[in-house]
């Protein structure tokens, strides 16, 4: 449509660093200015851990063509595959798995919301999701950074990988530009004061509604009271976040040189959009703005070609698109590796889980998931092979990852121990 305007708008790009606060404060002055509440953590707790450990979990939701993903041979001497050859430069820095899946997580596409929760049977009526790996970790170690975690998605819809303890989905940030503003753009002192005033008003309002609940509860049956508890915990969570937001509000955000990105809306450009997001994730890790990230890469736009029916021309198209996704992953690993830190580089202390919810999108199967784990300080460089008929639980990997983050757990979701064959370093 507006060709002319769009060219103009293109040259305008980003107008300055006060944009986000202005956006927050526009409208009535009494409007509550809510900063990025889903992940605010107390400001004063930072700098506790001199050598932070981090994780990012990435799911691409329309499968990965298995015959191009899985390598042949086992252990360190495996023969790489079409897709993994794109990561060959990092061969010593990742482990690829065969014969793994999330026990009981079935239902084809429905499984996409269980990639980090591992909660069985999402396709059934009455399904209730559990806490996701990232949120479980964020509850325990997220208090050390401005954002306890980042929930991100490359999408034009509303999918997410992250779920709260009560199984409520956490909406993902979809705009790299907004993410950039949240991470790095500081408001003016007046804007900060106005924001703090708004936060205080918000807190007193939450105090009030909390009081209302006890009055309501008297009229309810006990299961219904339990439902209202969910409201109550939402109020408390939000209050806590408002409180930390207030503390963080006065602390300066990290200054970086990178320009803010322009959002891309074309759903076909998912690889490019993923690259944009991952670059911001790297900056967020580097500035220690957060240590935990989930990223949902929505490739529903290629849904119809994933039902390729083995037609060679369609498979070819699909392969080209998926290859570009692996190129983006390789680029991300490279950039982490090139970012120096106390331990040789950022990748050494950052776990990158990459995978998909369907073993074959063509048939909607949820077993034999294409998955790999890079970085984070494990003995990598190998292909761990498990039984393709009777899969090994991927949820055990989540236990290993949690332990790597320094969280002392032996179980998570359907995981009942650490992942067999994956050794931690140092």
């Amino acid at each position, binding site marked *: 449509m*507006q060709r*002319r305007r*769009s060219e103009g708008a293109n040259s305008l790009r980003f107008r300055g660093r006060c944009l986000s606060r202005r956006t927050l404060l526009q*409208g009535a*002055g009494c409007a509550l200015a809510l900063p990025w509440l889903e992940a605010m953590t107390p400001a004063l707790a930072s700098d506790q851990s001199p050598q932070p450990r981090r994780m990012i979990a990435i799911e691409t939701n329309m499968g990965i063509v298995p015959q191009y993903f899985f390598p042949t041979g086992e252990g360190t001497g495996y023969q790489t595959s079409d897709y993994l050859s794109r990561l060959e430069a990092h061969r010593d820095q990742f482990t690829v798995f065969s014969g793994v899946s999330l026990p009981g997580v*079935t239902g084809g596409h429905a499984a996409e919301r269980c990639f980090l929760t591992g909660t069985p049977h999402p396709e059934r009526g009455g399904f209730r999701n559990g806490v996701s790996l990232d949120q479980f970790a964020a509850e325990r170690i997220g208090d050390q950074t401005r954002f306890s975690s980042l929930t991100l998605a490359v999408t034009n819809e509303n999918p997410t990988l992250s779920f709260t303890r009560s199984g409520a*989905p*956490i909406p993902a940030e979809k705009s790299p530009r907004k993410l950039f503003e949240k991470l790095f753009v500081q408001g003016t002192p007046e804007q900060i004061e106005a924001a703090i005033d708004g936060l205080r008003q918000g807190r007193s309002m939450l105090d009030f509604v909390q009081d209302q609940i006890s009055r309501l509860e008297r009229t309810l049956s006990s299961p219904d009271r339990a*439902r209202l508890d969910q409201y109550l915990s939402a109020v408390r969570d939000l209050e806590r976040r408002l409180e930390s937001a207030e503390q963080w509000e006065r602390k300066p955000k990290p200054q970086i040189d990178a320009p803010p990105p322009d959002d891309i809306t074309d759903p076909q450009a998912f690889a490019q959009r993923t690259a944009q997001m991952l670059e911001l994730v790297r900056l967020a890790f580097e500035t220690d703005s957060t240590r935990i990230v989930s990223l949902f890469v929505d490739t529903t736009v290629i849904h119809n070609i994933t039902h390729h029916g083995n*037609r060679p021309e369609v498979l070819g198209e699909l392969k080209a698109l998926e290859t570009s996704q692996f190129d983006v992953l390789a680029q991300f690993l490279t950039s982490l590796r090139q970012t120096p830190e106390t331990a040789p580089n950022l990748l050494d202390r950052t776990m990158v889980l990459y995978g998909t919810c369907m073993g074959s999108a063509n048939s909607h199967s949820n077993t034999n998931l294409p998955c790999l784990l890079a970085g984070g300080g494990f003995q990598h460089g190998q292909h761990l092979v498990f039984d393709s008929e009777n899969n090994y639980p991927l949820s055990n990997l989540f236990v290993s990852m949690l332990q790597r983050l320094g969280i002392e757990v032996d179980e998570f979701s359907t995981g009942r121990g650490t992942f067999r064959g994956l050794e931690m370093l140092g």
Partner: protein
Amino acid sequence: MNQRLSPALRIAPLLFCIVILSPSRGLAQPHEFIKTHCLACHDSATREAGVDLSSFDSIDSAEELLVWARAYEQIALKKMPPAEEPAPSDEQLAEFLPALAQKLIDLERQQRESGAGYLRRMTRYEYENTIREFFDLPGIALANQLPADGSAHGFDKHAQALDLSHVTLAKYIEAADQVLEMAIATQPTAPTIRRRRISLVNRGGFVAHVVGNGDGVLLRNFDVDPLFPPAAEQSHLDEGAHERLGIYERESTVGLFRHEDESFNPYFIEHVTIYPGKYRIRTSLWSFQWDRGTVLPGRRTEVARLSIVQLTGDGRGGQHPSNVLGYFDAPSMSPLEHEMVVWLNRNELIGFNTASLAPTANYARQGRAMAFTGPGIACDWLEVEGPLHEVWPPASHQFLFGDLPLKQWIDDPANPQRPPARPRYRQLGAGMNRPDPDQGLWTVHSQEPQADARRLLTRVLPVLFRRDVPAEQLEAYAAIFDARYESGDCFETAMRSVYRTALCSPDFLYHLETNSTEVDSTDVASTGLDPAALACRLSYLLWNSPPDEQLLALAHDGSLTQPEMFHQEIERLWSDPRSERFIEDFVGQWLKLRSIASTDPDRTLYPEFSPYLQDAMVAETRGYFRELLDRNTHVSQLVDADWVWINDVLARHYGFEAMEGGAFRQVSLTESIQRGGLLTQGSILKITANGTTTSPVPRGAFILERILGDAALPPPESVPAIEPDVRGATTIREQLERHRADAKCASCHRKLDPPGFALEAFDVIGGYRDRYRSIGEGDSPQQGSIDPFIPIHFKLGPAVDSSGEWRDGTPFHSPRDLARMLGREHERLLRNLASQWIVYATGRETGFTERSEIDRIVQQTLGQGGGLRTLLHEVLGSPLFHQGTEPITLRELPRDVSHEATELSTTWRGFLMHPTLPDVPELRAERTDTIAQDRKPAIAESVPSEQWQEVTVSVVGLFEPDRVMALVDACHRIPGFELLRVNYEEASMQVRWAADHEVWRGTKLEEQVQRIDERVRHASGNTLGARDIPSMPREQWQREELKIEGLDCAACSLAAYDIVIRVDGVLQAEADFGQSRAVAWIDPTKTDRSQLIEALKQRGVVAE
């Protein structure tokens, strides 16, 4: 077909008779029975058909309960134990079955009591509708900003789908602010109602671009616009030149050939809404056949789409979120005016599409529009009139502030207060509509703030909370006001804090379905909803929004619980246009219509698929379902009917005789057409396919689960899903034979596959087929057999076999056979729909406990003729709807309830995707002037002056003799300025300007030419200008004449002139596409002929 509602709607005596059985009956007996008759096959080791019944004492999951409920059914129907095993005696059954039922009911109750409860918050659609109703903001858009709700037992209305996280809560706070911002008046008078007529082609718009390239044409009087010849070998040059000459502002009709696509979104960009509100929109549409430059009568009535588009972010590119308003007829050569009232939010505009045309692109075609023959849709204009406020301050404001006056803000030093913050209204996007002048800071004024706050809250809170509010709660809210007001907030801001809190409180967000206090409330199961909660449940079911005043009044005086009144109200709510929300929301989930767009049909295999076809499919299913209920047709017509509800595009798609126009109507089936009932509708067939291929399994599962209410258990984990393979001849049907050969698979697939096999006769977009389409091998179909303008690249592969065997062995050969068989399953169809309605209406699933009551509902309905609206009354009359209320006795239903279409005085022809708003007849603005005239400066009055300055200047833009009149006209519009003489040959003019006139005051002589240039450019819309007379004597100028090919278009001539005159060293120029030439007088020391040719070539003009 139009069956009368049966009179005898009665409610049965007490249900749950099974519940009454003594729970103490010994459980030893069931153990014995199970051991004797079941465990031989269904123990944990054998697990025949995947069923393990050894867990009787430890049933603890919903899944196991489901298995046992099925076992109960099988035994009760004497299908189990199988015939070859010894059968239990009737006495044994009579003892065993009640005991088993009791056990299952007990277990189910335990599970429910330990479950997560049934307290529901509003779905995001309920939230949006609730705000729309309470605040009279019928189009405020909130739902999509709230986190998506989940789905449980098939619906977002089930309590388990309605989780709430801190993120959702934060979004509610934002939404509340947005509501209050829109609701509260900030100016003393309503925004001026403006009525503008705008064109689809406009400045800076993409339509101008595609029209210049031949994907459309400009028309006048059913013929080519003489000032804008269709693009041919040469596309039109430089939209800017056309804009400056006003080519797009002459109210020409725009004829488009091109369908919306990834890089083309036709929008009416000259209206971008500033003030949210009701707007009356009108448009005039017709169609034609274009034949290489000639306008001829069209092949049929074409259909255009109008949508409401939200400009987001920086407004770049297309793909903005948009709501389809509807599809509107464009009859051949006969303009049809459509009028309707719609709600437009800030930043919204109207989008257009040539919906019924096949994709075509002339810009890439040799000879462009002059080489194209095909259909086009013409849009004469679009009128936007509004905002239409019936009262001021608006109803939303009065809801919050009653009759308190709006006053201008005055700072009071004695009582300093913070003024409310105000948004600034400004022009948006490319819109030419402007905001009214700001009238300063106005706000609600109160003489007695504390008392007024209490008075307002006493009225508003019970409305928001949908029930009575006790005094102490009111006072708690009033205390928020007091605190804010004392802290220095003004009255409005302090009230906003209270209202925001109320909108985020659980009282507003949750459906608190309290029990009646009239009845002893110690036993929850024996009490019913209190009348206010019952009114809410009814209106949130049938309107997806809160009760209106009448319903509340009936709840208040107690008459709602009287059966006659209750059923009258059901009828009243049903015949209100708001019931369309029930159709949309319920069918959207029950039949999964919400996911109609989740697959994109393969473009090679299904080139005829279009957004128009998809929207028509959705409208068909919604419309059909409404017809069934309106007419109270027999339940069998859900799946088996001898009529369909279709429009033009569906008639073509389904193979009916041609129909004219987008409006839906009833058409009777002929023998040869395999349609009728829900299952043969395009929507269902598309939703159950994946875009490329069909499989009988998901289609069969859909029918079993959604239509017959027979949920299939998921496949055993060891069975690999079938890998679809569409290379060559292997059909999925052949692959499925494997399933039927394997006993483990066969137990389910024997049920699943047959209905799916019958539907193999339909492709992924619901078209009928007797051969599969293929990309690889096969015969080539005849080109043009779909639509002459849709090229075919697929092949026709193997033949389709849509025959099979129903589970009882009855053979079928076609979809009609299947429909007839399913149509005989009256009880299952009714039971399923009743169950779906109960889940949808109450947010509670139905399980084993409810089955006997549902059976009773079904029998009652069948006894009265089996009509679907009868079923609705029976379900709503059932204790299941009233949630355990004491049985109420229903008397006769009032006889003469007929569904009357709501009279809207607006007129349109086609079909709407969502209901529009009722007309606002008393509000009509005079049409404001056209935008072209808005833009032109007024003719200046001549002023006497003592201080005239005379000067001769060179004129830029006199590219042809006609432009002299434009120059005279432009000079007339410049105050304190006179044109004395024009010399076209030398492109110069002698003028004088009044140094004492305010416009020219302070102008120095050395800058006079520059100032004259600015004034002339402004007055001529940048088509003319002035510069110094060249210093080089004319006799030294060199004349170059170039031959150029192209259009007889003044604006293109201007564009060519612009190119030439800007070449450094060109002193004067002419351009005339009509005579195919451009002439330049150049300074030979600075430029030459080849540079001119090069400059033209760079802009796409071939010159010699």
